[in-house]
């Protein structure tokens, strides 16, 4: 049986970022501790997209409440949390209100792997919105070694002709522009708190 592609959360965030406004995708939660994994996704999206992220539970949410939650505000990122016990009727109800869920900010449908069948069966309009963007929550990708980190720092120092200390000083003085390279630099020297 073919399976969905597995994507670490940062790749999920990259996908949403490049898709721009009105983007939708689905992430299939891991079997163990889905709530903690959802929190991790939320943190990753917030960090990468630089926008607030809200987790909106679908269970027991009325049409009016859901519509309000998705539109006030309308530009942040929303994770629609479909718990494993979401029943056929609730999926159908969600499907019928798809137009009311359309918004500018990105939407991630977070659901159990075995819910895809119910999504396709009872919510074909939502499934159509998601298209082929259904991913398994994957393990985090390779992380940097000390050597790689030092090499990358040297690259940044050479290019900008600045030292680590100077970057930190400027960040503390709030003189550092919010460019991705400087953010990366601060994180690499262990001063991500200044970002």
């Amino acid at each position: 049986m073919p399976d969905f592609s597995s994507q670490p959360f940062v790749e999920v965030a990259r996908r949403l970022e490049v898709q721009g406004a009105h983007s939708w995708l689905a992430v299939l939660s891991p079997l163990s501790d889905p709530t903690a994994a959802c929190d991790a996704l939320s943190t990753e999206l917030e960090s990468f997209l630089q926008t607030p992220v809200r987790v909106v539970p679908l269970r027991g949410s009325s049409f009016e409440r859901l519509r309000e939650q998705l539109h006030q505000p309308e530009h942040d990122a929303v994770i629609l949390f479909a718990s494993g016990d979401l029943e056929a009727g609730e999926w159908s109800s969600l499907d019928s209100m798809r137009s009311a869920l359309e918004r500018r900010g990105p939407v991630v449908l977070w659901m159990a792997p075995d819910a895809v069948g119910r999504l396709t069966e009872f919510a074909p309009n939502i499934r159509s919105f998601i298209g082929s963007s259904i991913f398994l929550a994957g393990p985090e990708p390779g992380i940097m070694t000390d050597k790689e980190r030092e090499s990358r720092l040297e690259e940044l120092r050479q290019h900008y002709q600045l030292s680590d200390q100077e970057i930190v000083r400027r960040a503390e003085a709030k003189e550092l522009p919010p460019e991705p390279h400087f953010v990366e630099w601060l994180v690499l020297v262990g001063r991500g708190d200044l970002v």
Partner: protein
Amino acid sequence: MARACAGHDAACTGKMCNRWYGQGEAFVLPDRGRGLILRGMSSSPSTTEVKLQRRERFRAYMQTFNPTAPPQDAIEAGLVCEELHGSLFRKLAGRADLERGSQQLLVGGVGSGKTTELILAARSLEQEGHVLPLYIDISAETDLSSLNSGALLATFGLHLTRRLWADFPPLRQGMEALLGPGKPYGRLKEYAYGKQEAGVTTDEALGQRYPAAAEADRVHQADAYIAIRSVLGKLNPPALPALSRDIEEIRGPLEEFLAVARDAQKEVVAVFDGLDRLLDPTRFWSVASQDLRLFRELKVSVVLTAPLSVLFGARVGQSVSDHFDKVYHVPVVAVDPVRGLLGSVLEKRHGYELLSDVDADSVCEYSGGVLRDLVSLARDAAVEAYISGHDSVTSEDVENVVQQLGTGYLRGLGPYEMNLLLRLEESKWFDVSRATSVELLLTRRVLEYSSTDFRVHPALLSVMHVPEPKSA
């Protein structure tokens, strides 16, 4: 073994901490996101400009291929092929304009382009000058799962009054007499959103003690209570059976506002979208039938959508044409290399900026002619290419997204459904009177190219295990 994060004390677990902590030779960044420091993202500053250009190129492509953006945006940006369904919108607009009180039904599967046709029809009517088209997506306004008859009339009335007030300032003076409680607009609002009725009761459990003496004096009852009864509106209704008497209540207010529109030389046309979400045809009829009768009596032309299930399935398809002046079926668009309709959709959206001819053909083929799947595949293949570091879409990117789409369709299928699909693939046999067959159509696992030509969605077929034909 994990160390305390740099610069922090040993008690720090890393939670809510931006600093690095070590795991052997590796570093991870907890909780603030690892995206910024991933190996794959670290770019040489000297190549940043090139990467930014690439990113902008992909993002520009994504903007034109956005299956979830409002169709209005794509129309306004000139990204829509208007002739895709044989200028259907012109036919809809033409009849709605020429035959007052006509009723046309647009039936099609999910993602077939119905909304785009409706919006184009509304725009076309608007350009006529003497028509006031009201495009209303009922599914965005109220919960369809508890919708009842009267809801179409209620939402139509509200849209009409708001539109007249907003777009025709000279009419406002005349309209003011129609506003307020008890007046046509007040009655419309009550009809839509409900009201509270007070009545006298001696049952304390039903009522709240009336504080003032006036009402009790009037009815001469020492122990009178006022019971407040909530009468729900049509846009937040309980699941009650429809009553034609109930529908009649709205006739008066609607006639008043239609008269205002006609005084302004405007014929109102109602364009209802979203009713196709009522996948069960009996639900569709229970909502639509009485409302449509009143619309016809009011001489308001109506165009509305319906799910595919009103055409197919036992005891439903036969009667649909009896209820409407015209029923249009929006089928999936067949892959046709000569006419190249699907290719023209990609071309209109500048798809060939990132797609080669071969990959564009693959995207067309595996979409099965479902327009939203076409746009989704074209977009998702580009996302795949971007994430993989490709400069344009490759065949591998297309294969990946086709498999993803097919796997989505495959999930949840039981042995019985699989047998039906295999039988359709092998013998072209498909019985649309069966409930399971209709479900396969509604979920887009089976596509309808005409009333007799049904096929398994090509993306689904690509991930199904189809047995080799037996040799003689």
